[in-house]
């Protein structure tokens, strides 16, 4: 089984993940760093203790399934998996390199990855299938899906949201990384989601809203799952794109830009060290 970290260690785990992501994206001259940083605290709590997983037996039948539906944040997921021991931390240097298996969007075949993602709106239906199989066979697996706010534009998600409530999948947990910025503008400007919590509620989900960077709130909300028996749970995590690096926070450009050597140095300084 995976090691369960205490709260101080989870906080430093989040910083380690951020540092890995910054170094990986910079070395590969890749993008989507802002999207990685906004889920660092959520991932640190999930992999720091919530998920029932076994890095030595990635396909353990009783495990929880984590799906990163926003597959463009691959770098930080790979970092979490490597830190948990699914594969070597050294391999993170191969991210997006020629011939490497660590592609820029999440790719199955990498130990610990459950589903290749990248095209948005795919993972929630798949997670519904995993949760349904587990329910009908009275097993304990839970399915956790991290969604971006922008990908809630995809109709396939709303098909799955209907389905999960109808089938009373209380072993299904959606987490919305609600950083309010999508690919080409703010969510408010591109395609409004508000009132977002009410939408989920009206579809039959049990909803909690948290600050997605407050470790106390994250731990508490994860500890109270499922929120209601017989209902799927959604955590709407209010986050900041680029969180943890002052000059990246809240900036659309960091969906695309790769940091320079100076920017990497400044970012690592803010985060307090070298991974």
């Amino acid at each position: 089984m995976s090691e369960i970290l205490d709260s101080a260690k989870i906080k430093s785990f989040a910083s380690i993940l951020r540092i890995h992501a910054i170094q990986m994206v910079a070395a590969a001259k890749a993008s989507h760093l802002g999207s990685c940083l906004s889920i660092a605290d959520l991932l640190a709590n999930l992999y720091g203790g919530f998920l029932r997983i076994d890095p030595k037996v990635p396909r353990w039948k009783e495990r929880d399934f984590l799906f990163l539906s926003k597959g463009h944040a691959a770098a930080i997921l790979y970092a979490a998996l490597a830190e948990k021991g699914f594969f070597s931390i050294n391999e993170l240097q191969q991210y997006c390199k020629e011939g490497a298996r660590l592609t820029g969007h999440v790719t199955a075949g990498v130990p610990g990855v459950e589903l290749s993602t990248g095209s948005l709106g795919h993972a929630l239906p798949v997670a519904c299938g995993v949760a349904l199989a587990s329910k009908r066979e009275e097993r304990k697996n839970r399915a956790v899906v991290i969604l971006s706010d922008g990908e809630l534009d995809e109709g396939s998600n709303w098909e799955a949201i209907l389905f999960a409530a109808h089938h009373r999948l209380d072993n299904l947990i959606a987490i919305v990384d609600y950083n309010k910025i999508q690919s080409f503008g703010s969510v408010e400007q591109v395609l409004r989601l508000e009132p977002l919590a009410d939408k989920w509620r009206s579809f039959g989900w049990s909803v909690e809203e948290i600050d997605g960077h407050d470790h106390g709130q994250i731990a508490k909300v994860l500890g109270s799952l499922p929120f209601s028996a017989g209902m799927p749970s959604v955590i709407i995590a209010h986050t900041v794109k680029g969180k943890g690096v002052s000059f990246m926070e809240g900036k659309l450009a960091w969906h695309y830009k790769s940091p320079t050597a100076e920017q990497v140095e400044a970012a690592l300084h803010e985060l307090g060290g070298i991974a």
Partner: protein
Amino acid sequence: MRTAFIKQLCESAVQDERIWLLCGDLGYSVLEVFANAFPKRYVNVGVAEQNMTGVAAGLALSGKIVFTYSIANFPVMRCLEQIRNDVCYHLLNVKIVSVGGGMAYGTHGYTHHGVEDLAVMRALPNMNVVAPGDPVETRGAVKALLASSGPAYLRLGKAGEPNVHPTSVNFALGQAIPVRAGSEVTLFTTGGVLKMGMDAAVQLEAIDISAGLISMPSIAPIDRETVLRAARETGFLVSIEEHGPGGLGTAIAEILAEEEIVVRFIPIRLRHEIIKIAGSQEFLRTALGVSQQSIVEAVIKGLSLQGRSRKPQSS
């Protein structure tokens, strides 16, 4: 064919508890028998094909063999990216079943015609593409798909197609099924036009033309050896399908080109156009050039071009 399909699926599901069936709110008077016998392994997901395919992938990730079922394009094109990314990418055990392949829903109009499905499915890596020719092949196909792990597409007709094969056939994925021997031309069919091919071969025999007939339920992978052998033996191939470009005819042309085989080859298929008229399946086939008559005419024309003139067909 759909009756043969559900019978075989129910029989297999008794033996194999991994088998699940999902439908997109279609299958009235067909699927009830499975739903009643195996309620824990059946879901009507509603009119939501993208979710249906994603849920199927999730079930398959949990070790199930999952059939998704709907009509014509709905389980194929509405959810094409789910098939590509969720199913094929992960080599998952999801079998997509479309009833009403071709123009079986003739009067319903173009939205309900599956006439590009073979091309689209054939383009996907890891996808077994199967279009049985009659109910006998359908049963064989279901068994073969269950025995083979991984993604598959099963294109069925509707109900009431006649059996062309008198008894069960030796069905294997990727293998052609010889139906009739012939020395002057080889007819290849895929899907429900098998009977049409048989009738054409019989009609040709009546005017002293020896036409072989081979059923090709597997389009991908395809039986290259059988195509090449027929090219060597008869030197004249005709493909027949209720489908536009990109299906069986294209697959055979690719084999011939890749092997640098020069033979006469006439694809009988739908033109590359939107079908804008109503009509029964039979009417539309004839109107759009996929008919017994068009096969016979193509064979006579092909043989005359090869200097083998024939007496005009008696009518």
